[in-house]
């Protein structure tokens, strides 16, 4: 058995004349957390649905733990867990009944079923809500329940489509702690997200734009990628005064190639012959407020998207 958990080759989905996912190829190993990013409507969910067997690919191949998704649909379903975008369990069933239903859906024998339900209630810390209707849970607890339901049959690969959308920061962190524990136990995780801090937690990241996977690799590989910080330029973070005012100044400086607001900071890409002191003077801030930085993943995606739009 190899370490490859997910393998896709030239996976394509078209609806009529519209190509939603174009020739997507990727590989995810056992125990790896793979972050799958891209703007809304770029083909993230369609990719996940193809890999889970919910949507039939138009062309291309994919396999889960060496099981072809077209030929071994049934075996694939037993190998994967799927947590969809919105809460997709039953609000009018209790926490325990929801788990019981999924245990039966995977045809777990009675003894194993009740053992797994106990384990997962323990794992997701849901014991206090066991007999409560799912409708009464808050967003974060609902997601934990959904995660527990997706794990009952001990899948080796877990797909999570925006698992943390709409839940509070503490609940997000808690959910990620659970995901790390899963990854340590050897489960491969394929996670889509809009949050850059979550993307930073992933071992490897893929970025899909308009149906095409335009970047894939580890964080460092992506940050070093050509075009992110072009040859002969350097990246600085400028702070110390209103970021919108800073952006206005940046537009007037001939040496600024690119400028993007990040919170109360402005990230600028400048020609490398310009020193930090000159930037501080031109922007009217103290020298301590100008800092040479490595690109963040967000910088990477912004740069890649802009390059695409220009092309």
């Amino acid at each position, binding site marked *: 058995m190899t370490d490859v958990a997910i393998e896709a080759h030239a996976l394509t989905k078209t609806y009529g004349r519209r190509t939603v996912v174009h020739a997507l190829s990727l590989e995810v190993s056992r125990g790896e957390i793979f972050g799958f990013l891209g703007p809304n409507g770029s083909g993230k969910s369609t990719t996940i649905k193809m890999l889970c067997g*919910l949507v039939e690919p138009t062309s291309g191949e994919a396999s889960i733990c060496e099981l072809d*998704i077209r030929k071994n649909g049934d075996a694939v379903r037993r190998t994967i867990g799927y947590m*969809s975008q919105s*809460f997709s369990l039953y609000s009018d*069933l209790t926490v325990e009944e929801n788990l019981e*239903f999924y245990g*039966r859906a995977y045809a777990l024998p009675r003894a194993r079923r009740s053992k797994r339900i106990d384990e997962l209630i323990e794992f997701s810390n849901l014991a206090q809500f066991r007999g409560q209707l799912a409708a009464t849970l808050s967003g974060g607890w609902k997601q934990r329940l959904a995660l527990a339901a997706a794990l009952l049959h001990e899948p080796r690969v877990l797909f999570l489509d925006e698992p943390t959308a709409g839940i509070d920061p503490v609940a997000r962190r808690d959910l990620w702690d659970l995901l790390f524990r899963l990854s340590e136990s050897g489960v491969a995780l394929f996670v889509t997200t809009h949050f850059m801090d979550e993307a930073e937690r992933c071992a490897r990241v893929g970025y899909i734009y308009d149906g095409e996977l335009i970047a894939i690799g580890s964080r460092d590989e992506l940050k070093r990628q050509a075009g992110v910080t072009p040859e002969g330029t350097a990246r600085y973070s400028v702070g110390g005064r209103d970021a919108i005012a800073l952006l206005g100044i940046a537009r007037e400086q001939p040496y600024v190639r690119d400028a993007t607001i990040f919170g109360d900071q402005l990230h600028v890409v400048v020609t490398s012959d310009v020193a930090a002191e000159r930037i501080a003077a031109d922007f009217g801030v103290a020298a301590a407020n100008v800092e040479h930085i490595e690109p963040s993943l967000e910088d990477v995606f912004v740069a890649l998207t802009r390059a695409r739009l220009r092309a």
Partner: protein
Amino acid sequence: MNRNPFDVRGYGAVLYKELRHVARDRVTLGLAIALPIVQVTIFGYALNTKVEHVATAVLNEDLGPASVAFIDALRASQTFKVDHLVATRGALMAEVVSGRARVAFDIPPNFTADVRAGRTAQVQALIDGSDASIAQPAYGAATAVGGAFLNRTVPQIDVRPRVLFNPGLRSANFFVPGLIGVIMQLITMFLTALSIVGERERGTLDQIMVTPIGALGLMLGKITPYAIIGVIDMLLVLAAMRWIFAVPIAGSLVLLITLSLGFLMAALGMGLLVSSAARTQVQAMLGVLALTLPSILLSGFFFERSLMPPVMQWVGYLIPLTYFFEILRGIILRGAGLTDLVSPVIAMLALGAFVLVAASIRFTRGSSA
């Protein structure tokens, strides 16, 4: 993907959760039980196609003994309720135009004289045609009263009809058995379609589709509770029919219930078919209505099918309810046995099986879109 539409795995799991959904949704459950009772009451009591006591106005310009005898004959017919006697032709028309009278008789001045002389005596009857259900029988009754009146003087052939199976020609005997079919179809189609489309809308269907639950297992698991409700509804209407409206069941109750289960299969299949096409619950409701209204209108529930244009009769052959009505009225009113009902039974079961298989295949394909 490479799903087998006849894979029944997961039936138990789906049934487990579905029974809980039904038990917890008290409002829907209550409606599903209350609806048949309301409908039986409406159809059994309010809907009466036997025309009696039609409001009638009379203008008697003759006032002779023959005209008085004619008015007595109208009163005696039960069809007419003569309670407006007017003095002018204008007043007579006004009675009809205003809707106070449905029928108006104008007895001309020479009526008694004509009768005495043995000449043809004329009476004009004005019938409000805006309500066809009253106009037709009123027309017939008016002619009959006139004929009978003449017969006293000129004896003619005396026809004595005997009505078989529903001697009182009671509407309840005709409508309530049919109502069993209408209610079973309405309730099961609505509940099935809404329940499945609801899962699609909430995204829970995708979550089910990633499990090894088979397409048929899912469908059967989802429809079983609604099949049970359909059977309860049928028994409720049957009981109301027997004990409230005193419609006797002439044939075999066992046969009736068995064939009802066959119809249930067709109704559930149609509900599934709607749910495989609809994306939202609103679409599903409209879809159920789009199938149910023609079913009720073309299957012979209200209107006799042999009187319809051939195209509509053909459409009626594609509706399972058409055959179920024949079966219901056959068993309940005419005491028909299985051998009398071979062709409707075969047609109904074949249609039901076709719908169910089509729904199952559509469901497997449609779910991955």
